[in-house]
């Protein structure tokens, strides 16, 4: 007890008295308030106009409606599983263990890009392949790719603006053409990207589509040499006639049947940026003569519905990167990572509802 140590208690000058107390209390209050204000500013509470992960996901929900339990975008999908085997060319570009040549388990997801989980397949021309490579050393790689050659916007601010401009009018269920046109006029990069996307021939099926990573990353090899790259999954399956829609899930039904008949394969092709190629703008395609290096083969051996499959609760977060793959100056991987985390936070707390895609129903229909 301090009263046993009177010499210590008398060390200090003793309590402040009189008006000085008010001044000092005010100073303490100012220190605490300043710290709190700095915290609030950092958290974005003092700048409600700043784009946040919440606002991006809110914008998706505003366009697509509320579909609790489902992804806020790319909502209708199916789980896929298989392996990836490097062909020996990858390690010259990246030291990532996925390229070393061992057979790497892969789980993933094929989906429609639409944000509504029950859209008919024929209404969503954009499809995605998302993959999770799980090498034995734990140095996991996640990537999402789309069946389009470029992305329609240059950054997440434009993405939010694009969502606002294409928000369906509650009366008509369609976007206001004037708002869309105004956005395209103000954003010529988007207008050009949409032209490039429209000009690309659509694939007949999930199995015959090429899925491109759209964003630019940096590969780093064991010697420390760096290269700006984009990548694509190029199908081994030959293109067929696009079948007429036989039902709301005809693309998924066809995929389930195809995987039932045999494995599907894609080749992972890495494209190296040339001098002067833009790496920070996914609306711009690189020239077609850029060096392309095939680094391995993805084999999809099985599909499973999301209700029981291993892909539903995974964020295909583009910042889950192994040593040897790094973000570049493309702003999207960070924005996606932040927004996916917010989407996951929301849907993981919501009760799950059955996916529109039911593998067992398709298989039962085949055998019956």
């Amino acid at each position: 007890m301090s009263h046993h140590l009177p010499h210590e208690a008398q060390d200090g000058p003793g309590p402040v008295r009189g008006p000085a107390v008010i001044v000092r209390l005010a100073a303490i209050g100012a220190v605490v308030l300043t710290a709190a204000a700095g915290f609030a500013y950092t958290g974005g509470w003092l700048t409600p106009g700043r784009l946040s992960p919440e606002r991006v996901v809110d914008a998706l929900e505003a366009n697509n409606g509320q579909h609790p339990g489902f992804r806020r975008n790319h909502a209708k999908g199916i789980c896929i599983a298989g392996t990836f085997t490097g062909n020996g060319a990858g390690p010259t570009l990246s030291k990532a263990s996925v390229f070393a040549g061992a057979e790497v388990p892969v789980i993933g997801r094929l989906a429609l890009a639409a944000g509504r989980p029950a859209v008919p397949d024929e209404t969503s021309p954009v499809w995605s392949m998302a993959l999770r490579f799980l090498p034995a050393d734990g140095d996991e790689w996640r990537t999402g790719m789309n069946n389009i050659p470029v992305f329609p916007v240059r950054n997440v601010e434009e993405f939010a603006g694009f969502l606002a401009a294409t928000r369906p009018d509650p009366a008509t269920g369609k976007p206001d053409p004037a708002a869309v046109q105004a956005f395209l006029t103000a954003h010529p990069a988007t207008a050009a990207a949409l032209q490039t996307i429209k000009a690309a021939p659509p694939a007949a099926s999930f199995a015959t589509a090429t899925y491109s990573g759209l964003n630019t990353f940096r590969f780093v090899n064991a010697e420390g040499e760096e290269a700006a790259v984009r990548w694509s999954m190029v199908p081994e399956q030959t293109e067929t006639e696009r079948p007429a829609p036989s039902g709301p899930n005809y693309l998924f039904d066809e995929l389930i049947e195809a995987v039932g008949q045999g494995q599907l394969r894609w080749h992972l092709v890495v494209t190296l940026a040339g001098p002067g190629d833009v790496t920070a703008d996914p609306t711009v395609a690189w020239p077609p003569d850029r060096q392309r290096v095939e680094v391995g083969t993805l084999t999809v051996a099985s599909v499973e519905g999301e209700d029981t499959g291993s892909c539903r609760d995974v964020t295909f977060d583009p910042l889950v990167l192994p040593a040897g793959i790094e973000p570049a100056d493309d702003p999207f991987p960070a924005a996606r990572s932040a927004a996916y985390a917010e989407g996951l936070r929301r849907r993981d707390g919501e009760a799950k509802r059955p996916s529109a895609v039911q593998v067992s129903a398709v298989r039962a229909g085949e055998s019956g």
Partner: protein
Amino acid sequence: MNARFTGMARLLHWLMAVLILTMLFIGVGMVSTVSARYQLLVGIHRPLGIAILVLAFIRLAWRLGHPPPPLPADLPAVQQALAKLSHYLLYFLMFALPLVGWGMLSAQDYPVQLWPGVHLPPILPASPMLYAVLRSAHGLLAYLFFATILAHLAAALMHGLVRRDRVFASMAP
């Protein structure tokens, strides 16, 4: 009995004060941004959290072996109790936040990467509902931590500037 905290205790206190405040600002900043800063902030957040957890173990062990100087006897009982409670809370949060963060990444089936190529094992099974609960808890505990630190700071300044007893000096660098 020495009227000051030991040099080791003061070193740990001020080192962790800097790290924890940095951590709280990084955390609240990274969940509110979609800018390129996000990847830098997340890249610091995970290893810094684990560093704070390791330091918390060292600090607790040191604290158990080296009792702090007593509070002034003339400090009202309510303030004595509040001081004690806030210190228990600060120690609890030093452990709880990194552990909840680690557990939350585990429940999300997300790699617990310290830096490229270096991972910690999961400490919980993958479970979406568990993730949702832990993710909410991580945020709420962080706000509680910041609020407790502000109260701690205000109390320390009261001791140093108004009461002018030996409490502030006992932990001053």
